[in-house]
């Protein structure tokens, strides 16, 4: 039986342990989040207005759409890449091939986005390695080469950089599965692709979803990659936010664009929490 004094002591101690973290969260997360929302809805005269949002949509609706398409497409490709890598590491039968893949796929984990951007600029440029390979193998004529430093470059960089993170989580989840069901399916003659799609992926789905949500949020906030790879319009919202602040000191529209970004991540969060509730456990 826990006495009231013990319970009170526990409450106090719990709050005491949490308070330093709460202080930083309050000062540098809750406060700026609330304040940016207020600024997004405040006009130059200090009155409530939705003008910043109208301006944001008027100037940047293409960029909003562009951001959604880029991030969603990248997330889908990251998911497929992570499943392919995880699946191969789990079901692959050729030890050398598995070892090569295991050794090489993790490298981008430790490469910063800005460095990934630099690498891809040299790789995807008109005179970069990718086109050089195409030309030297006779697939393209030198005059036919084009630069991939546009939306395709952003997607390729995001997928290249984020797939290893999700693949690491997914491969870990796949490795911890009970092998008996996989072996039983194999004994019944099921092909590897079918085992992966119908037995393994459904079991590791929560891990895939979490990895993809974290990647989605990260990609929504990256400035360096779109800034370095896609020097044209349409571009991503982070570039627009930086531009509104640097060029015009326009915090209202910048915050409105930020608010639109939270909404996008908020929708993703809602999907995740809903799935967690449906699964009957804590997300």
């Amino acid at each position, binding site marked *: 039986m826990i006495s009231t004094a013990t319970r009170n002591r526990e409450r106090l101690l719990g709050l005491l342990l949490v308070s330093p973290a709460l202080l930083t969260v309050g000062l*540098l997360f809750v406060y700026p989040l609330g304040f940016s929302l207020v600024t997004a809805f405040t006009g130059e005269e200090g009155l409530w207005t939705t003008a910043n949002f109208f301006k944001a949509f008027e100037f940047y609706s293409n960029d909003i759409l562009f951001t959604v398409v880029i991030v969603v497409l990248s997330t889908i490709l990251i998911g497929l890449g992570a499943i392919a890598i995880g699946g191969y590491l789990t079901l692959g039968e050729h030890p050398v091939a598995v070892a090569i893949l295991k050794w090489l796929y*993790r490298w981008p984990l430790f490469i910063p986005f800005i460095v990934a951007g630099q690498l891809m600029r040299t790789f995807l440029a008109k005179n970069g390695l990718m086109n050089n390979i195409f030309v030297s193998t006779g697939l393209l004529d030198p005059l036919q080469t084009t630069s991939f430093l546009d939306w395709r470059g952003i997607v390729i960089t995001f997928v290249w950089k984020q797939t290893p993170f999700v693949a690491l989580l997914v491969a870990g989840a796949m490795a911890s599965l009970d092998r008996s069901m996989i072996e039983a399916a194999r004994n019944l003659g099921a092909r590897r692709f079918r085992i992966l799609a119908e037995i393994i992926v459904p079991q590791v789905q929560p891990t895939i979803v979490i990895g993809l*949500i974290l990647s989605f949020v990260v990609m929504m906030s990256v400035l360096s990659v779109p800034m370095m790879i896609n020097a044209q319009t349409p571009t991503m919202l982070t570039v627009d936010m930086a531009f509104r602040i640097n060029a015009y000191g326009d915090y209202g529209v910048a915050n409105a664009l930020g608010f639109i970004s939270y909404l996008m991540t908020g929708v993703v969060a809602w999907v995740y929490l809903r799935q967690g509730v449906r699964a009957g456990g804590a997300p």
Partner: protein
Amino acid sequence: MKGVNRILLVALAPTLAVAWGVPFIYSVWTAIHPEKYSARFTWNAPITFANFLEAWQAAPFALYFVNTVILTLLILVANLILCTLVAYAFVRYRFQASGLLFALIMIQLLITPDILIVENFNTLAKLGLTDTIIGITLPYLTSAFGIFLLRQTFKTVPISLDEAAQVEGASTWRVLWDVYVPLAKPTYLAYALVSISFHWNNFLWPLIVTNSPETRPVTVGLSIFATVESGVEWALVNAATLMTTAPLVVAFLIFQRQFVTNFMRAGIK
């Protein structure tokens, strides 16, 4: 037909591996060869470190490295202490609104501090902390990801161990330090590598907060090479790029096995 499928499947792994490895390998190639060999792959291409030297001299990289090490370590130490306290509190104590507070901290996972840069910059300006290393670290002192990972790990510690230590007369701090922390070592290592990697790589926030070489980290220093596509010296760019990321790659090579094993074990379940 079965043989063809098998060959295709075996070829899939190296293809995926090459797709992920080629940009990095190409970067190494251009960095250690003269500019004219950046698109010519011949075995007799001369190896040179002149690109690294030139990149090193283009900006005060030694100072940038020192700044990066200081800010990365400050954040790591703060994260390890604060996340440990919070995770322990959420696992072992019942207090008012603990569920709400946990949800509040977890929302951080879904809204990265980068989106809040405008207001955070204003807060730092009010505190007089712009263009300081402390200013760069402030928004990252608490990590929702770290709290989440440690909470998951602490949950696996049997309560009987906790109670036994208390019966022996151990204080709360003693129990935390002697029971929980040692059992969570793999999680700490995995998290430390993720944290170091993330903050070493962070670009946008330091770019906004700093405006002098005395406080700039390496990623911001690297951005001086980020000019438009035309006229870029790829060899120089790649040498600077590799120089920036070298400490992380070395750390990854040293701790690769522990990192992967521990991250998988401590991962999201």
